[in-house]
């Protein structure tokens, strides 16, 4: 399934559906292109590679941050954007199938970004569409651009992804962001600490897969004890909507908070990431410290999505 696309021409028309479709070379290639675009953007202010091209953002469920990030990326590339931001304002309310909506929208646009509540929706859309489809989240399955921007953030901050000790904290059971990130990190020489309440441990099959890929994996329920060992702490929100029952959620909500006390024994160089939005997992007192990397992480979405849009459109 994984095929390396080391040349820009290999990316034209390619869909970005799942991290499972990415080799390590693919990841590195996208990050290299993103880095070059970021540098160029900083020098010139705006670019015009995608002039005359139209991005359609089809958001069947609201995700303001992801949608704005894609739209901003397309504008920064000099292209235009059409789309909708909730299912209530779309033809889906009239009962149109996803396949029919895609077949219609592909005739209005050059690339489609899809956010959909059903698992696998992006794969189906990619099969139907003749223009590239980029997955901006399909239910609880994949959100590949989040993983790529996380990797980009790490590489920008440390100058490398290899030889890092990384802690993943929070809902490791239901959180698709951490599953996908952990699997991508397995391509690199990293040591992973999985920190969560007992009932939110990383699924066994993922832990086994990570170990099979040669990653040294440790599991812990104790954040304070683990923090001093880490170069990077990736924090996730415990999402109520992912829990099958409310009681289970109530037991674990607010289990962890990253604050000055927790960080007092951290390495000075420790960086803290979070896909945002946060609730109370990271105290605002961390924001002003050298540890906070989460707002840089938000910015990373722009060059990474510019790279993916530009590559799949074939304009770079």
């Amino acid at each position, binding site marked *: 399934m994984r095929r390396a696309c080391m040349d820009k021409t290999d990316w034209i028309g390619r869909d970005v559906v799942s991290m499972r479709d990415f080799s390590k070379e693919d990841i590195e290639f996208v990050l290299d292109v993103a880095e070059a675009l970021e540098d160029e953007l900083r020098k010139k202010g705006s670019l015009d590679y995608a002039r005359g091209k139209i991005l359609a953002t089809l958001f069947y469920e609201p995700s303001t941050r992801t949608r704005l990030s894609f739209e901003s990326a397309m504008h920064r590339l000099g292209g235009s954007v059409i789309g909708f931001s909730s299912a209530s304002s779309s033809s889906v309310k009239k009962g149109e199938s996803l396949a029919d909506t895609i077949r219609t929208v592909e005739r209005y646009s050059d690339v489609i970004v899809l956010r959909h*509540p059903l698992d696998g929706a992006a794969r189906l859309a990619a099969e139907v569409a003749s223009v590239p489809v980029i997955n901006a989240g399909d239910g609880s399955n994949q959100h590949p651009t989040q993983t790529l921007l996380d990797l980009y953030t790490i590489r920008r901050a440390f100058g490398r992804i290899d030889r890092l000790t990384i802690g993943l904290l929070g809902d490791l059971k239901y959180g698709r962001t951490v599953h996908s990130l952990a699997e991508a990190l397995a391509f690199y020489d990293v040591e992973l600490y999985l920190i969560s309440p007992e009932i939110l441990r990383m699924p066994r099959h993922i832990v086994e897969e990570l170990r099979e890929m040669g990653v040294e994996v440790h599991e812990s329920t104790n954040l304070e004890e683990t923090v001093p060992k880490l170069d990077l702490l990736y924090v996730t929100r415990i999402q109520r909507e992912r829990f099958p029952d409310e009681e289970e959620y109530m037991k674990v909500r607010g289990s962890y908070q990253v604050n000055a006390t927790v960080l007092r024994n951290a390495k000075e160089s420790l960086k803290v990431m979070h896909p945002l939005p946060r609730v109370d997992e990271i105290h605002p007192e961390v924001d002003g410290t050298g540890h906070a990397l989460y707002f840089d992480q938000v910015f990373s979405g722009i060059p990474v999505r510019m790279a993916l849009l530009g590559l799949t459109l074939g304009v770079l």
Partner: protein
Amino acid sequence: MECSEVIVMAPQNLKVEVISEGTVIDHIPRGNWLKVVEILGLTESNSGTLLIASNVPSKKLGRKDIVKIEGRHLTEEEVNKIALIAPKATVNIVEDYRIVEKFTVEVPDFVEGILRCPNPRCVSNHEAVSPKFHVVSRDPLKLRCHYCERTVEGDDILKNL
């Protein structure tokens, strides 16, 4: 079910009902003969006589089912469709009371349209699309949904056929 003729026999009658021409599928796990018949589309009225033996003692499986299809030669490709429920099945092609060809079922790399995805949130359960699975492991059998990427194994495979 609209079988033209289904004769369920006691194992001791097995030797009597040898077919002259057709296909014998042996080593089907006990209780799965109906699913085999359904998957192979042998429930149509024009599919010929079916002879079914269920709960037959077997060295390999303990107990097994056998399906004999009179007058029809199934191809390897057709029979591989049953690999998910009868991965150890052997197939004998019979002509003039003699076995002229023998092969075992092989689990393919990719299966389409045979089982539904057990994930209720999978797009394949909501849109008009044929469910597809990648075979990630043969023993034990593990499949991954082409759409939602959920892994399916064990009883979940049987329940969703």
